[in-house]
C-alpha cells in the first residue's frame, strides 16, 4: 500500500468544489453528513445557501476550515474568512486551469490566430536558446 499522506477526506470543515448542478463551479464547506450520499453544505462566502448536497457532485479540495459539526452559517463564515479560503483558491493551479479553460472557450478566430503567433515566437526563442546550450555542451566535450 503506497504512502499517501495527502489523501483528501470528507470531514467536517472540508472545502469542496461543486462540479455540476445549479451551483457549478463554487466552493462550499462540508458542515455535516446527512447520510451515505449527502452532506450538509454551506458556502456563505461563495453564495451557496445552506443545503444538502450529494457527494457525487462534490470534489474535495486541499483546504479544511476549523468548524464544529452543524455549526451555524455565521461561524462557518468566520472560519472561512479567517482561513482566507477564497484567496488561496484563486492562487491554486486548479482554479487557474479552470480560468484558462474558460478563456480558451471564448476565444475568437482572431484571438486564436494571435495565440498561434505568440506560441510560435515563444517556441522559436526556446529552441534558439536550447540550440545554443547544446552547442556549448558539444563544444565543451570536444
Amino acid at each position, binding site marked *: 500500500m503506497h504512502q499517501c499522506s495527502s489523501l483528501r477526506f470528507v470531514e467536517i470543515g472540508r472545502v469542496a468544489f461543486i462540479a455540476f448542478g445549479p451551483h457549478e463551479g463554487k466552493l462550499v464547506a462540508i458542515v455535516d453528513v446527512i447520510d451515505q450520499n449527502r452532506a450538509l453544505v454551506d458556502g456563505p462566502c461563495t453564495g451557496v445557501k445552506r443545503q444538502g448536497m450529494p457527494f457525487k457532485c462534490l470534489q474535495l479540495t486541499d483546504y479544511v476550515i476549523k468548524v464544529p459539526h452543524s455549526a451555524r452559517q455565521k461561524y462557518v463564515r468566520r472560519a472561512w474568512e479567517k482561513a482566507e479560503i477564497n484567496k488561496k483558491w484563486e492562487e491554486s493551479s486548479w482554479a487557474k486551469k479552470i480560468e484558462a479553460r474558460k478563456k480558451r*472557450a471564448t*476565444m475568437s478566430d*482572431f484571438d486564436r*490566430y494571435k495565440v498561434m503567433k505568440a506560441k510560435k515566437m515563444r517556441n522559436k526563442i526556446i529552441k534558439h536558446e536550447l540550440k545554443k546550450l547544446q552547442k556549448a555542451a558539444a563544444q565543451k566535450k570536444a
Partner: protein
Amino acid sequence: AAGEAPAPLRRKHDGGRTPSVTRHDYIYVKCPDVGLFFLAEGNCGFRVCFPPNTICVEKKIKERAPSKVVKTVGGDKNGGTRVVKLRKLPRYYPTEDVSRKLRSHGVKPFSQHRRKLRKSISPGTVLILLTGRHRGKRVVFLKQLGTGLLLVTGPLALNRVPLRRAHQKFCIATSTKVDISGMKVPKTLTDTYFKKKKLRRPKHQEGEIFDTEKEKYQLTEQRKEDQKAVDSQLLPLIKKVPLLKGYLRSTFCLSNGVYPHKLVF
C-alpha cells in the same frame, strides 16, 4: 345640302377579308330638333334618313397614320411588291377575358424578395469564405448588394481575393470588425457589374460547337481601378490593427480537436 340625306354608304369588300373602314367626310350631323348626333363612321349598310332641317356639317378629318405599307420584294416573278399591314390583328384570342391565376399568396418575383442580412454581419466584418476558389480565406465585408449577395474584398494585396460577391449562407462571420465607416465604396459596384457575361452562342453551324468565345475571364481596366480605389482606403485601416494584416493573409482550417460547433468565431 340641307334636308338631303347624304349618299348611301357602301360597304367595300376586300377579297373576303375583314372589310376596311372607309371614312366619310360627313361624320356628324346637326339636327336642330334633336341636337348633334354622330353617324357611324363605318358602314351602316342601310340608307340613313334624316329628319328635315338637318344640316350636314363637313368636318375635316385628321390625317391618320398609314395602316398599310408597300414594301418591295426581291426575287423573280414575284410581283415585285407586297402590301404589308402595319397594325395586325391579334393571332390569338384567349377563351377567357381575364385568365384565372392559380391561388398563390405572397409569391413575389425574385427582384421583390426581402433581403435579409445576418445580425453578425455588418460592414467591416471579417468573413471566412467556405466555398468557391477562395475557400478558407478571410475576407473583409463591404456591403450587401441588391440581390442580397455580399460585396467582399481580400484586400487583393493580402490574400488575392478581389472585389467579389459572396453568398451569405456560405460565409462564417467572425466577431472581428474593421472600422470602415469612413470608407467610400464606389456606387458603380452593383450586381450587374459583377454578373457573369453570357458568351455569344455560336450560330447553328458545324465547326466546334464547344469552341466558345470568352471562355476565360478577362480582367478589365475598370476592375483594376475599382479594386485600387477600394483597397487604398481599406489597407491603412487594416494596418492600424496589430496582427490583422497577417490574420487576413492566413487561411482557416480545421485540425485535430477543433470542432466547429464548439468554436466561437
